[in-house]
């Protein structure tokens, strides 16, 4: 009887090991190529100043920041600098372009699986020509060398964001990750 129970325990362990292996293996081998969806963005404007945010601006910031991250994710995954032209400008644009050029040169890609952004707007210039925000981003970041995943992590990153208005949208002008708040 005890031998029989031992056999069942071994079989159970084997099945668990196989399932664990398959799940973890699947995580390593997620296929490429799906266009990333627009990430979820929640905007808190309760501490904004000195200018009050307009309803339309609030709506546009959420839309454009989400689209900026979508284009960033696609650009860094596909190594296409043209994808960042729509929502990045200034130093943020230059930095991203440089990173993508480096990725191309080294045969690397970065894949972001975006799990959402909590944006807090804290400065809106009196003239309405700049807004500074802090983003707490939940990201899964994978680094691929060719098709091989060499790094995979789930991470929460805080970004200092400077956005400025264009003709029909807000552009990300600075996107600077900052050490976690103490």
């Amino acid at each position, binding site marked *: 009887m005890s031998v029989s129970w031992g056999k069942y325990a071994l079989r159970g362990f084997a099945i668990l090991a196989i399932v664990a292996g398959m799940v973890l293996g699947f995580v390593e081998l997620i296929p490429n190529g799906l266009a990333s969806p627009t990430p979820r963005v929640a905007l808190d404007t309760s501490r904004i100043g000195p200018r009050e945010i307009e309803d339309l601006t609030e709506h546009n910031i959420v839309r454009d920041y989400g689209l900026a991250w979508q284009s960033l994710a696609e650009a860094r995954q596909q190594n296409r600098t043209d994808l960042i032209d729509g929502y990045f400008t200034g130093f943020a644009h230059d*930095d991203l372009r440089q990173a993508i050029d*480096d990725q191309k040169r080294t045969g690397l890609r970065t894949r972001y699986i975006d799990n959402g952004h909590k944006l807090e707007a804290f400065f809106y210039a*009196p003239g309405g020509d*700049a807004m500074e925000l802090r983003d707490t981003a939940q990201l899964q970041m994978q680094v691929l060398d060719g098709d091989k995943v060499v790094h995979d992590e789930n991470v929460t990153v805080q970004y*200092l964001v400077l956005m400025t208005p264009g003709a029909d949208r807000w552009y990300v002008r600075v996107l600077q990750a*900052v050490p976690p708040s103490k």
Partner: protein
Amino acid sequence: MRTIFFACLTLGVCLFATYSAHAAQLQVPATVVANTAVNIPTSGSGHATFYLIGPSHVAKRQVQLGSDIKIDPEEVKDAGRYVAILSTGDTGAFYVVASQPAALGFLDHPSRVPVAENNAISAVAFVMDKFHNIVLSPQTVTFQLTVKDAPPLVRSVTSRNGVAWTLVSSTRKEGAAHFDASLGNVKVERVVQEVANDPCNLRIKAQPTPNGVLVETDTVRDCSGNPLPDGTIVSFTAIGPDGKSTVDAPIKRGVARTVIPVQHGATISVASGVVIGNEIHVGGGGK
């Protein structure tokens, strides 16, 4: 059966081991000042591939295990999060933070402003280091508005999250005002054109002419005494037995004038923008 069992078990364990290996940590500093060299110690022997993934820089190179990995200053000049990865599975992440302030991004608004307006000019300065990273530590930014023949208006503001801002009133004298933002040796200058405000004490006088009545203003000035610019429209309105007629005339050399045909007497008034001036009553034939 036993062989299949061990094969599956081995596969599972291998995949788990591969996955778990990602959690191994490289000894990297938590934060690094921009443009500072970083050394990352490694253990073991042989070669491995090292990857550095940053906000503006991505690198891949072979390194010797057991020796320090050297990251050059120019590889970490942009602030942000950097991930260091070894092909052995060791990883580490660190943040690069801005170095000393060395540049200001300065926005002023508007570029033209009426004189003597309260808090009419906004100034926003972003504090950056020489690599254009936002400096988050508080810094004192000095704003100074200077017009000719008047003492400068100076405000010192401590930056917060890399931004310092203030509102200043325009001066009482029209002309080009120099608006500076400075921090240490860094100074950025803008020019704000201060222009005359709405007219003040708008007055007209009249004299008969063969064709009617010539009406003209005194020199049109704002309440601070600045003459309004040429081209500003002044409206003359005549109301009399013949009805109502309005003539718009631009200011030329400080004065607006026009001839209004008046046959049977009229009351002539003047206005510019929202400001209304005096009235003049003229008799028949413009007398």
